[in-house]
């Protein structure tokens, strides 16, 4: 049986602007989304900013009511059985907010333990265990206001595991973590996978999604544009190569010129220190380089490399090189 099932989910936001002449605008954040996650599966949710990932996650965590569609978790209805579902799920919305900064780490956990109706005897053992698990051993007595960003995010992980939920929703849990912290975090996620937890993970880090996910859904503008295993998604771009060109202060107009070249499938840029790295997807591989160079005449160009496509390239292809 599927642990999570989402059928034709739709969610609209109404926003009002203007003080005197109020105008109501509707944003269809999630237009029509369906997917299923089976027990023990790690399901990655990818998509550009504003695609509707957080909105989807909020509906699944009982924080938003859907406008249409049906969502079931462990067979329970997300609207009718919200309170029962809350006992079975844990969730994190990335970032450092959502903790009581005046309390120590331990007291934060004790407070949330009381909200999950966990008996003090149980939480007394569970809290030290979790602090150890997330690498906060010995820091639990300090006030959260003195924690670094990474420490706060670790505390969030401990918080959401307090009641040992079987299902976890992690919305950009590694955002803003340093590389070592992010790697340690992925180790924690792997441990949870080994415990057969069902996990929905939203991330903007492709290698993270690639290495952790059993399946990935790419969502764009409120709909799912692809849903498959990472390796299957990569097959979509198997015939392509990626030419990476280091540039310095390249103008958008030049990028668009390259995008318009007939042998170019997609172009994205990545900021790196003072440089912008152009990622050009093309079937011609290394042969495309001379033509690309011609289009870049007059630009300062650094290193040029040609490589195999990654999940990120598959993603860029799918969402049209927007991000």
């Amino acid at each position: 049986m599927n642990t999570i099932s989402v059928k034709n989910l739709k969610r609209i936001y109404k926003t009002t602007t203007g003080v005197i002449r109020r105008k109501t605008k509707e944003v269809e954040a999630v237009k029509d989304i369906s997917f299923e996650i089976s027990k023990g599966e790690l399901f990655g949710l990818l998509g550009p900013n504003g695609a509707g990932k957080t909105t989807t996650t909020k509906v699944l965590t009982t924080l938003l009511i859907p406008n249409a569609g049906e969502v079931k978790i462990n067979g329970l209805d997300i609207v009718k059985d919200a309170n029962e579902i809350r006992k079975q799920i844990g969730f994190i919305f990335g970032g450092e907010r959502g903790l009581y900064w005046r309390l120590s780490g331990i007291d934060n956990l004790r407070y949330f333990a009381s909200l999950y109706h966990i008996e003090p005897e149980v939480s007394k053992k569970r809290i030290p265990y979790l602090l150890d698990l997330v690498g906060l051993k010995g820091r639990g007595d300090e006030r959260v206001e003195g924690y670094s960003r990474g420490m706060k995010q670790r505390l969030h992980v401990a918080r959401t595991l307090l009641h040992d939920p079987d299902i976890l929703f992690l919305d950009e849990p590694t955002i803003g973590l340093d590389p070592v912290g992010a790697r340690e975090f992925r180790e924690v996620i792997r441990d949870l996978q080994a415990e057969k937890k069902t996990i929905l993970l939203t991330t903007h880090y492709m290698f993270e999604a690639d290495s952790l996910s059993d399946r990935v859904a790419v969502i764009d503008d409120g709909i799912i544009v692809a849903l498959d295993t990472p390796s299957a998604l990569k097959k979509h771009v198997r015939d392509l190569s990626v030419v990476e060109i280091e540039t310095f202060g390249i103008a958008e107009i030049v990028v668009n010129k390259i995008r318009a070249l007939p042998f170019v499938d997609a172009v994205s840029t990545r900021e790196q220190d003072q440089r912008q790295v152009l990622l050009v997807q093309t079937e011609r591989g290394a042969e495309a380089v001379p033509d690309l160079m011609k289009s870049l005449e007059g630009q300062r160009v650094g290193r040029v490399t040609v490589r195999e496509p990654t999940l990120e390239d598959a993603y860029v292809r799918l969402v049209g090189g927007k991000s």
Partner: protein
Amino acid sequence: MRIITNNLRLFWQGTLLSYIALFVWLRPTTYIASKVLMPLAQILFFSFLGSYASGGTNVDFYVIGNAIQIVAVSGIFGVTLSIGGDRWNGTLPYLFGTPANRMMLFFGRAFMHIFDGALGVVIALGWGALLFGLDFSQTDLFALGITILVTTISTCGLGLMMGCLSLITANVMFVNNTVYFLLLIFSGANIVLETFPNWMQIISQMLPLTRGIASARLLISGSSLAEVTPLVLGELGIGIIYGWLGFYLFKWVENQAKRKGTLDLV
């Protein structure tokens, strides 16, 4: 039985932690200073002003009125901060995402402020005895204690409602100050209610504190518990009404947040 004791323990733990977490003035020294000096300042100011205006005949009236009025500091400011604090901590989504019993959660936010507020009144009455010779020799102290507690509870009831408003409106402090000063006027702490026009008296009767202050004045001048019972019950009733309105408002806020996706709530 076990379930009940467990629930009580959870309630207590949650209550205590949320009090520490959300009540921002709680640095020990600041707290003690505000607890001791705040009542002193208010009593001195209004009692001198009052006795000057009334020709020094009726100091007790102002001393008692302002001493009881002190509960509004905990009941309005404290409770509002305890409810509204979740907004600036960004904890509301995490709170609303738990299966926590909403009633325990909500009323738990006010619980410690009841004792905090009552303590403030006792300190203020102490200042009254010390500085203005307030005389308790005729007073049924047990009855006075009940009056203080009930008045604190009812003021916290209003505070719970204001706290919910602070989840909706942006300007918490403005709301707080307005209510505090409205209470200062309408509670009769510094003005004889009978001198109010009719409509103002009606408002007075609909607010907490009014009956509590009247009851305390009667008790200190020698009335018995039986004589003030209607006042005390009325005060309690008012508090319960505001508390319940607050609770429904709280549930409504949660519901609206889930419906509308109100930005900083979820």
